[in-house]
C-alpha cells in the first residue's frame, strides 16, 4: 500500500494549566493521569504518536472531550503542543517561523469546521475566495478559481448570498469550498457533518467521498459517529481521555478491539455488512471446491452461498486462491 507518511506526530502532549512544560519535564515526561489532575492540569492529549499516509482518509474518533479536536489543532498548529514533534512533509512544524507557518497554511492546508465558521460579513464567493484574497491574488483571478470550486461543491447561482441566507447543508458546502480554495495537500475536517440533519449528513458524506475520489487529498477527518468513521475511513484512530487507544482499519477494530472501550463502540454494529470475507476466512487453501468468493466481498453478500454450499474457496482479485470458508465458521460468526 501507499505507505509514505505525509504527517507524523511523535509523542505529542498537550496540557492546560500553569507552566505545563516544566511540569512534564519534572515528571519525566510521563506523569500519571491522577498526578496531572491533582496538580490542577487538564490533560488534553497524552503522548500521541501517529502517522498520516499520503492520500488516505484517516478518521479520528472519540467522544466529546477525548482530545480529538485538540490533536487536529496541534497538527495545524492552531494550538501549540506542550511537548512532542510534528513533521509535515518532513518539516518540523514546531520550528517554523510565523511567516513560514502562514505560507504553509496558504498553500498546503485546508480545514472545515463543525459549525461552519463562515465569515458572516462576506458573501459565498467572498468566503470561498478568502484564502486566495489573503495571499494577495487579484480579484478577477481569485473569483475565477472560486467559481470553479462553487461548481465543485454544488453552489451554482448562490455565489452572492450571505451565509445566513443558506441552509445548514449549503453553509457547510461553503465551508468545504473555502477549505479547498488553496488546493490543499492536507485537508482537515473537524466533525464537518455533525451539525447537520441525518438525511443531509448522508448526502454530504456521499458527496465528500465523490470529491475525494476526484481530488485524492490526504485527509484527517474527525467524528464522534462510529458509523460515519467506518463508512469513510481507510484507517481509524480511537481516542479516549486524550490518549490514542487504537489505530487500525475498521476491520481491525471490530475483530481485534484493543480494549473494552473500543469493543463497546463496535459491539452493536451489523458486522456482516462491515467485514469482508478476508477477516474470517481460514488460510488453508482448499482447491477442491469449485465455488469461489472474493476476499474483499462483504460477508452478508456471500452468506447464502456459503450456507447452501457448506464451504467455498476465497480468491483475490487476480483470481489466486488465498483461503477458504465453511458453514461452521460463518454460522459461528453470525451467532456471535
Amino acid at each position, binding site marked *: 500500500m501507499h505507505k509514505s507518511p505525509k504527517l507524523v506526530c511523535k509523542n505529542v502532549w498537550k496540557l492546560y494549566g500553569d507552566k505545563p512544560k516544566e511540569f512534564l519535564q519534572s515528571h519525566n515526561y510521563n506523569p500519571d493521569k491522577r498526578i496531572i489532575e491533582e496538580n490542577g492540569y487538564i490533560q488534553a492529549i497524552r503522548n500521541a504518536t501517529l502517522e498520516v499516509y499520503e492520500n488516505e482518509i484517516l478518521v479520528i474518533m472519540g467522544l466529546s472531550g477525548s482530545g480529538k479536536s485538540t490533536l487536529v*489543532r496541534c497538527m*495545524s498548529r*492552531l494550538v501549540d503542543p506542550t511537548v512532542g514533534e510534528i513533521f509535515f512533509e518532513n518539516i518540523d512544524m514546531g520550528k517554523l517561523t510565523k*511567516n513560514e507557518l*502562514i*505560507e504553509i*497554511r*496558504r*498553500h498546503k*492546508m*485546508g*480545514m472545515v*469546521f*463543525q*459549525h*461552519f*465558521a*463562515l*465569515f*458572516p*460579513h462576506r458573501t459565498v464567493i467572498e468566503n470561498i475566495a*478568502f*484564502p486566495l*484574497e*489573503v*495571499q494577495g491574488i487579484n480579484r478577477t483571478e481569485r473569483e475565477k478559481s472560486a467559481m470553479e470550486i462553487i461548481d465543485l461543491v454544488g453552489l451554482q447561482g448562490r455565489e*452572492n448570498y*450571505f*451565509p*445566513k441566507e443558506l441552509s445548514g447543508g449549503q453553509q457547510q458546502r461553503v*465551508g468545504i469550498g*473555502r*477549505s479547498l*480554495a*488553496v488546493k490543499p495537500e492536507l485537508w*482537515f475536517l473537524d466533525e464537518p457533518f455533525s451539525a447537520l440533519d441525518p438525511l443531509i449528513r448522508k448526502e454530504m458524506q456521499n458527496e465528500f467521498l465523490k470529491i475525494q475520489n476526484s481530488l485524492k487529498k490526504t485527509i484527517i477527518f474527525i467524528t464522534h459517529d462510529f458509523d460515519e468513521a467506518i463508512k469513510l475511513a481507510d484507517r481509524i484512530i480511537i481516542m479516549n481521555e486524550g490518549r490514542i487507544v487504537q489505530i487500525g482499519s475498521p476491520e481491525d477494530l471490530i475483530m481485534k478491539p484493543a480494549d473494552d472501550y473500543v469493543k463497546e463502540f463496535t459491539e452493536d454494529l451489523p458486522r456482516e455488512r462491515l467485514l469482508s470475507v478476508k477477516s474470517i476466512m481460514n488460510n488453508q487453501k482448499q482447491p477442491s471446491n469449485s465455488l469461489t468468493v472474493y476476499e474483499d466481498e462483504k460477508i452478508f453478500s456471500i452468506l447464502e452461498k456459503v450456507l447452501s454450499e457448506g464451504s467455498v474457496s476465497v480468491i483475490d482479485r487476480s483470481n489466486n486462491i488465498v483461503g477458504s470458508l465453511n458453514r461452521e465458521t460463518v454460522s459461528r460468526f453470525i451467532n456471535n
Partner: protein
Amino acid sequence: MRKTKISNKIIFISLTFLTLLLYWYGKEIANYFDSKWLVKYPKHYSFPFAIYTTTFVKWLINEANFLLFTFNDLTRFFAWIIEQPYKIVLAIFSKGILRGQGQDAIQIIEPLSWISVVGIFFTLALYTKDKFLIILVVLSIVYLAVFDQWQSSMITLSSIIIAVPIGVILGILFGILSYKSKILEKIITPILDLMQTVPVFAYLVPILVMFGFGPVSALIATIIYAMPPMVRTTLLALNNIDPQLKESGLMSGCTERQLMWKVLIPVSKPTLLIGVNQVIMLSLNMVIIASMIGAGGLGYDVLASLRRLDIGGGIESGIAIVVIAIALDRLSQSFANLPTLSKKTQLTFYNKYKKIIFLLSYIISIYILGYFFTFFKFFPKELMINTSLFWEELVKYININYFDNLESFKITLLTFFMLPIKKFFLGIPWPWFIFVLTIIGWYFGKFKLALLCLVMSIFIVTTGLWEKAMITLYLCGSSVIIASIIGIPLGVWAGLNDRANKILTAFIDTLQTLPSFVYLIPVVMLFRVGDFTAMIAVILYALAPAVRYTAHGVRNINSQIIEAALISGCSQRQLLFKIKLPLALPEILLGINQTIMLALSMLVITALVGTRDLGQEVYIGLTKADIGRGLVAGLCVAFISIIADRIIKAGSNKLKNKYGIK
C-alpha cells in the same frame, strides 16, 4: 438587490452634496429670497413651552388638591417615608444615635468606627473568596481614613446604602409590571428614556420644591437617575427566561404570584445582579450633583475644594468617590458571578452564620476598645496624608512649562477641526436639517423612526432653542469623533491583549467615576475657558464606552471563525482588519452610541466652563430656579440623544441582521 443598493447610494451622495451646498450658500439663498427664517427660526413663532411648564409645576405645588390632601402633602409624605431609613443608616455610619436636636443633641451611641467599617467590608469580601478582591476592598476603605475623607465618605456611603435598595426594588417592581402588561411596557419605556436622557440639572429644582430641601431630595434625584437600568434589566431577564421553565412552573401548580417569586425572579438572579451593579455605579455618579441640593458628603467636599481652587483637595475627595465606586462595583460584580454552591443540608446555626457572628462580636469589641483608646474610634490625625501641595505644584509645573505647547496644540485643533464643524451645523438651514434627519430615520427605521425624528426636531425648533441645539450637536459631535479616534484603537488593543485590557479597564473605570469637577478646573487652567476645555472634559468622560464596547466586540468573536481565518493563511494584521473589525462593527457602533449618550449628559456640566449650548440653558434654568426653562432645555437634550440612540441602534441591528448574528 444590487439595484436598490445603487439607488440608495445615489440618494446618499446627492443628499450629502445638497447639504454641503446649502451649508456654503444657505445664507445667500435665504437673503436672495428675503427669507431669513430659513436660517434663523423666527422668535415670535416659538411656542412658550417653558412658561407653561413653570406655571403648571407651580400650580401643582401650590394649589393642586386631591380633596383629602394636597399634592404637596403627598410629596412630603413620600419624602418622610424615605427619610426614616436614611436617618437610621446615617446614625449607624456617621452621626451616631442622638437625643435632642442641633447642638444640644447628645450622642447616646457612637457611630461605627473606621475599624468596624473595614471589618464589615472585609466580611462582605470574604464571601467572594477572592483574595485580590479582599485586599482591594480593605485598602479602599483604609484609603478613606488615611486621606481624611472619613466623615464625608460615610455620609455619601449612607445615601448610597439607601438609594440603591430603593432603586433596585422599584426597578424590579416596574420591570415586573411591564413584563406582565404590554400596555404598561409601552408607557414605561419612553418614561425610562426620558429619565436617562434628561439632564439631572433640569429636574433638580422641581424636585427641591416638591420634596423639600435636604438629603431626601438628593436621594430622590439619585433614584430617578439610577433606577432605569434596573427596570430594563429586570424586563430583559424575565423575557429571556426559557419558556419551558415557565411551563414547568405552571404545571407544578404555581399561582401567578408563586410563579413570579419562586421561579422567574430566582432564575433571573444573575442578570438582576448586573442591574444592581449599574444602579450602584450610577448612584455614585450622582454624588456631586446630589450635594448641590443638600446631600453633603464627598460631593460637597469636591465642590468646596474647587471653589477654593484647592485642586489637591478636590482630587482626594474625588478619588474617595472612585474608591468607593470601585470597591462596591467589584464586590457586587463578584457576588453576581459567585458560583451557586451545593447547599449543605443541616448546617448548624453557628456554622451558617459564623461570619456574621464573628463580625458582630468584632464590632462590639471595637466599641469597647474605643472607650479606652481613641485609635479605635478615629483614625489618628498625625497619620493622615495630605497631597494637596503635590497636586498644586504638579499643575503649576505643567502650567508654567508647557502652557505654550498646549496652547498651540489647542489652536491647531480648534481651527482645523472644531470650527469647521461648528460652522457646518450652524450654517445648515433648519428646514433642510429636519428633512435630512427624517430621511435618515426613514432609511434606518421606516415610518416610525422617521416620525420620531420629525416630531422631536420640530419640538426643538419651536422652543426657539435651535441654535443652542446646533452648538450642542457640534460640541458633542467633535468630542465623540475624537473620543472614537482615541477609544476604538485602545479598545482594539484591550481586545487583543489581556494585560492591556486589565490596565485599560482600571483606567476607564476611574475616568468614569471620578467626578468631572475634579479635572474641570485644572483643564481650565491649562486651556482657558471655552469650547476646547469643554471638549476635553467631555472626551475624558465619554471615552469609556468606546473602549469597552470595542474590546468586547473584538474579544467575543466566535473562536471557530478565528481559526477558519488563521487556517486560511491570515496574518495577524489581515485577521484584525478583514475579520475581527468588521465583525465587531455592530458592537463598536453601540459603543459609539453610548459615547454619544455620555457626551450629552456631560455637556450640561461643561456649561460650568462657559459653553453656550443647551447645557448652559439647563444650567441657567437651575441657577435662576426657572423650572420651565430648565425642563424644556432638558427635554431638547433628551430628544437629541433619543434620536441619535434610535438611529444608531437601528443601524447596528441592520448590520447584525445582515450578518445573522444576534
